[in-house]
């Protein structure tokens, strides 16, 4: 069960996307993802002004037992990065949908949002068999 608001969209790589004003979105990883990873020890995100491309790697999340790629759920330019994660990567485990957000992106192709899953579809996806 997630605490997510109904307006979140999800990628099959377990990222969530929150639409902000204009063409901006905020991105993070889902509760399911943080649980799979275990205690997160380090996060490597792109920097402000970096370009990201949908379905391509835009960073990594490292736990004691694994390093996972973060795949961009959308294309665009990074406008904001959650600096707090440098000192407190465990925030992702504790509050994956709130304080544990990763980056904010200015979309270059808002059409891409249509390919993402809504909450119900994402729930079905993770229950379907991961």
């Amino acid at each position, binding site marked *: 069960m997630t605490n997510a608001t109904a307006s979140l969209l999800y990628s099959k790589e377990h990222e969530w996307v929150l639409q902000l004003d204009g063409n901006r979105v905020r991105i993070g990883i889902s509760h399911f993802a943080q649980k799979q990873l275990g205690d997160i*020890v*380090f996060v*490597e995100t792109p920097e402000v002004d970096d370009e990201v491309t949908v379905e391509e790697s835009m960073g990594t999340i*490292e*736990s*004691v*037992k*694994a*390093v996972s*790629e973060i795949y961009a759920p959308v294309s665009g330019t990074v406008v904001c990065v959650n600096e707090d994660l440098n000192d407190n990567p465990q925030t992702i485990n504790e509050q994956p949908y709130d304080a544990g957000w990763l980056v904010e992106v200015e979309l270059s192709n808002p059409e891409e949002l249509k390919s993402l899953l809504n909450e119900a579809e994402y729930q079905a996806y993770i229950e379907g068999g991961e």
Partner: protein
Amino acid sequence: MTNTFRYLPDTKQDQEEMLKFLHMSSIDDLFEDIPKEIRLEGELNIPEAVPEPLLLKKMQQLASKNKNANNYPTFLGAGTYDHYIPSVVNHMISRSEFYTAYTPYQPEISQGELQAIFEFQTMVCELTGMDVANSSMYDGFTSLAEAASLAISSTRRAKVLVSKAVHPESRSILNTVARGQEYTVEEVNLVDDVTDLRGLKEQMDKSIAAVIVQYPNFFGSIEDLAEIKKIADTQGALLIVSANPLALALLQSPGKLGADIVVGDMQPLGIPMAFGGPHCGYFAVHKKFMRKVPGRIVGQTTDEQGKRGFVLTLQAREQHIRRDKASSNICSNQALNALASSICMSALGKQGIRQMAQLNIEKADYLAKCLQKAGFIIINQSPFFNEFVVELPRSVKEVNSKLLEAEIIGGFDLESDYGFDNQMLIAVTEQRTKEEIDQFVKVLEEVVND
């Protein structure tokens, strides 16, 4: 069984009991799964077993066919050196709790090894002036190649510049590795015995991930790392330095001079020459590269009672977890040699290592001056550590033959790697006495007078 081997404890009875337990009648039953077509018919065609007393004799005979530094003063350096190793080193690494142990993946029963490596990492950081060091790599040459690969991936540029004054074997391995990972290696020429800084400036551009130099360089000369750093900085390239750890006792640390990655081999400190291996690569970085360091790293932590302990950490980057996404495939390292080096550095200590380095400088300087007095030309224009190049009137091969007759191992021939005819790279360590050095000069004088 027809033979008994002391490493095979099974008696006929043991075997029978175990086979009975397995409801099998013979050992052959255990190998039924090997297709008949590929089973060996007879025994392997290798020499018969040799019992211990005879084997020791045989191996002594084999060893005595080699002329070793015990009887032949060695003036050969070029990356591997005849240095003094305190007796304690061998005694400590012969403790079987250290050498028969595996990688410390179960930290509760490996605190000895883990702590020793933590201490090693600390000492490497101290000498190099860097923030983080790993637990060792195969050797100094492969460390350098790994450093280049790290620079390529972290800067996302496609080329590295390496000075021709870097050890030829380093450059050779770097080329092999670069071909596998598909990046370019470009060489920077020499001016006399050091890197051509003007040439470096010209070759420097935004496509360069790193500049790689050696300190002291292959010819023993001290490169000006400060100047090289300035040039690298103009285009945001990293500075990778391959350094002799003994020299760092008295030379300014590459860390203080702005190096991003420092690599090298610990062989001069506590590790025998052993015909080239095993030695012990080290890898030290600025803290911004902490999570990108290849190989194993030991970190400090606590247990549930708050006791200080040590564990392998940052393992998520390693091959056994990252698999095809790993940036390096290194698994084994040179742990026992890192331990040997730690013990040597602890025995020499803060003062002793400076003393030892000082002896090296003084003895090399003495030989160079004697040779100059005898009319030989020393090629090095820059100050050198414990190695330098001398020009000879004959081929190095000829001169080395004469030296061998006098029971001396002569220096390295620079002809095949650099095309420098009749130029010999000579190393003088603290092991060389004044008498040996005088004798060396005498033989060279005789060669000239022949």
